[in-house]
């Protein structure tokens, strides 16, 4: 953005990016329409389907803004087009900067992400590296997704029938254990492992020393605790007061409250406490 006349900001590149982004949008709309129709065919309530859309949109908003912040953060070195495309297709917050750094190093670009790329060949090389490094999952999906999905569905069904049979038999004292029933715990367990990684990092992880908020510290723990407590309180309010409309919004509202708490903690606490990150 420092130099808007350079090749990185040329309309042709924006046009190329636009085509990629339109494809992604089209694909999402296609699956949304198909799933919606299938929901109706299954006799699902329109309100339920609409709730899934609104709560997911609301849920996504803060994260989408933070993805946008990443695009902006990468822009001084790479311009807006590469980060825009990369973060619209497969990209994630963690991969892009690593990939850009690796590409810059290979092409001998001095100064890494802190310096702007001025050589078109290096620029194109970075585009290749960042794209090829992340595309493998799309090669795997056509082969693996269907059999994996099928296996999971049949394991779930098996669990259900076994559970039913057990209840019917009323075996009482000694409960029979089955892999099918255990599958009901696998989903929450995997998910807890996943959430736990981010929770553990907020408690005990080290960040990049030059980036505030990357490592575990006073503000990250306050944010985490406020997020957990406010979500539990909201959930309780929704349940006790029978506010069913509130339930889908418990998580996004809890998240926003926690982010407000982060701002408050950072600005209201004495500076040496607010900036404390115990693992660096």
């Amino acid at each position: 953005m420092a130099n808007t006349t350079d090749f990185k900001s040329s309309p042709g590149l924006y046009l190329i990016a636009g085509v990629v982004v339109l494809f992604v949008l089209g694909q999402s709309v296609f699956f949304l329409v198909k799933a919606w129709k299938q929901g109706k065919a299954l006799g699902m309530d329109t309100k339920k389907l609409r709730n899934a859309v609104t709560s997911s949109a609301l849920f996504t908003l803060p994260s989408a803004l933070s993805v946008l912040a990443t695009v902006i953060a990468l822009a001084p070195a790479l311009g807006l087009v590469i980060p825009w495309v990369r973060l619209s297709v497969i990209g994630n917050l963690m991969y892009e900067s690593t990939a850009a750094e690796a590409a810059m190093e290979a092409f001998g670009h001095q100064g890494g992400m802190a310096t702007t790329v001025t050589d078109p060949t290096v620029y194109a090389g970075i585009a290749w590296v960042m794209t090829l490094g992340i595309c493998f999952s799309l090669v795997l999906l056509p082969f693996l997704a269907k059999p994996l999905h099928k296996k999971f569905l049949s394991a779930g069904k098996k669990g259900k029938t076994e559970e039913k049979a057990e209840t019917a038999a009323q075996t009482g004292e000694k409960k029979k254990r089955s892999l099918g029933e255990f599958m009901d715990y696998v989903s929450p367990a995997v998910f807890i492992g996943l959430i736990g990684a981010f929770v553990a990092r907020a408690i005990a992880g080290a960040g990049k020393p030059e980036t505030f908020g990357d490592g575990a510290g006073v503000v990250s723990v306050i944010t985490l605790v406020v997020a957990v407590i406010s979500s539990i309180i909201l959930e309780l309010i929704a349940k006790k007061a029978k506010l069913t409309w509130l339930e889908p919004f418990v998580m996004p509202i809890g998240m926003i409250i926690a982010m407000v708490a982060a701002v408050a903690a950072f600005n209201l606490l004495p500076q040496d406490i607010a900036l404390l990150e115990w693992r660096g």
Partner: protein
Amino acid sequence: MMAKNKTKSYFDRVHTWGRISSVTALCVLLMFPMAVCLYLGVWPEAKLVFSGLLKLIPIYWATSVIEVILYTPMLGGGGTYLSFVTGNIPNLKLPCAINAMEGAKVKATSEEGEVISTIAIAASSIVTTVILAIGVLVFAPFLDAFTNNALLKPAFAQVLPALFGALGAGYFIKHWKISVFPILVMIIVLVFAPAMGASTLLFPGIVASVAGAAVMYYTGMLDKKTDK
């Protein structure tokens, strides 16, 4: 019976659409650097591209294999194909799908779960793509100032603890017995490798979590009477 047949064919149809869209997405994705080269009239040396890739492939291609195996069952058919095109799975798409399925009170293994998960992920992808496009095209000059706003900076810096704290709350309460062990394991891992990123840390976390749940299930610790 009719509905069952139709749903069964929906499963097959989703995977057909998904396969086509994955291959198309791959082509569109590879078209981008190709178009950049054609437009700028430059062709970077393949040797240098490969030397850059050498640092990425061992981690990210291996991660891709694990991610496909790990996330596909939880995201469902349509959700999987969409998520792997738009990315941000562990920190956005998966939480989003699970949140929507919880809200709609449907299971991931049910037909309704498949529908809700796909709708949630599609909505999330559309919102992200549109926000990115608007942000880049219209607000970029102002957003730079916005993201560097000293007052809001701590909020953006803490987006992950806020997201996962809020999302985890319900799970930790409902499945507290399963939760304690993996989180402890990951904290211990971080004691020895404090800089390990969440995207790597989640693998030992998930292994610990599933293994812990298996031990608890088979020893009867998760039986409903006491779990409640």
